[in-house]
């Protein structure tokens, strides 16, 4: 029978596991920040949110199961903190008719040249500012899934787990959220005209 590990061995293994955990978590910081930046309202909020997330993750590293998805685990902490910080106050506004059509934005953008130009050129009529501000106008529930799936590259399954909602809800919010985003973009284009 193997001897029970001594206290010293146990402490050393523990320290090694913790250091490894911290390094793996820090290696994900760019991706975590990318998501935080668009879940939180401002750059300052994102900054604080990411720091709180890491502080909590480092404290509760033992509850992470090695071999499972660390990125999703971190994001789960982040979204919970975001809810705790009361950033959910914004209610979902009633839907307007413009959202109903997936092609609305394309039709608006391509209308001026009679639909003659190439699709990529049409997209380039939107400025980076248009996109950032349109995304921030999408209500939280919808923005969260867009940020996770379309920007953060999470699967539906991961997004469902992180946000603690059924996968069907992820899909329907994503579908509707993209339409809302396009409506916001179309509105920003119309305002500029």
């Amino acid at each position, binding site marked *: 029978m193997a001897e029970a590990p001594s206290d010293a061995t146990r402490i050393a293994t523990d320290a090694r596991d913790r250091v490894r955990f911290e390094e793996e978590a820090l290696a994900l*910081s760019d991706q975590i920040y990318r998501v935080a930046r668009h879940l939180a309202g401002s750059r300052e909020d994102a900054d604080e949110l990411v720091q709180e997330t890491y502080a909590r993750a480092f404290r509760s590293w033992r509850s992470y199961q090695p071999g499972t998805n660390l990125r999703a685990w971190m994001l789960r902490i982040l979204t919970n903190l975001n809810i705790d910080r009361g950033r959910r106050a914004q209610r979902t506004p009633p839907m307007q008719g413009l959202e109903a059509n997936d092609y609305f934005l394309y039709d608006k953008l391509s209308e001026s040249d009679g639909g003659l130009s190439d699709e990529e050129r049409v997209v380039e009529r939107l400025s980076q500012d248009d996109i950032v501000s349109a995304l921030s106008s999408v209500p939280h529930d919808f923005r969260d899934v867009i940020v996770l799936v379309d*920007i953060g590259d999470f699967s539906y399954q991961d997004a469902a787990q992180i946000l603690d909602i059924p996968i069907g809800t992820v899909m329907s919010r994503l579908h509707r959220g993209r339409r809302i*985003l396009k409506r916001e973009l179309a509105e920003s284009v119309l305002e500029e005209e």
Partner: protein
Amino acid sequence: MGHHDDPCAHCEEMMQPYLDHILSEEEKREAEMHLDECEWCRRRYRFEESLRVYVRQAVSEPMPAELKLKLAALRIPLD
């Protein structure tokens, strides 16, 4: 598959699931058959595809370097 009065409207319904790769093989074939013959829909699918890439690029902001340092400082020191 049932009859659809307006094949382009049906194709529009399939656009997001198509680009998300979650259509069944049969639905995918159906969408592609329509796209092969309909430039109007094809342009709109292509636009959506470019838009997704464009949005992702537009909102990707690099993390501030000082934040990275702050995070590293949050690590719990070894005893």
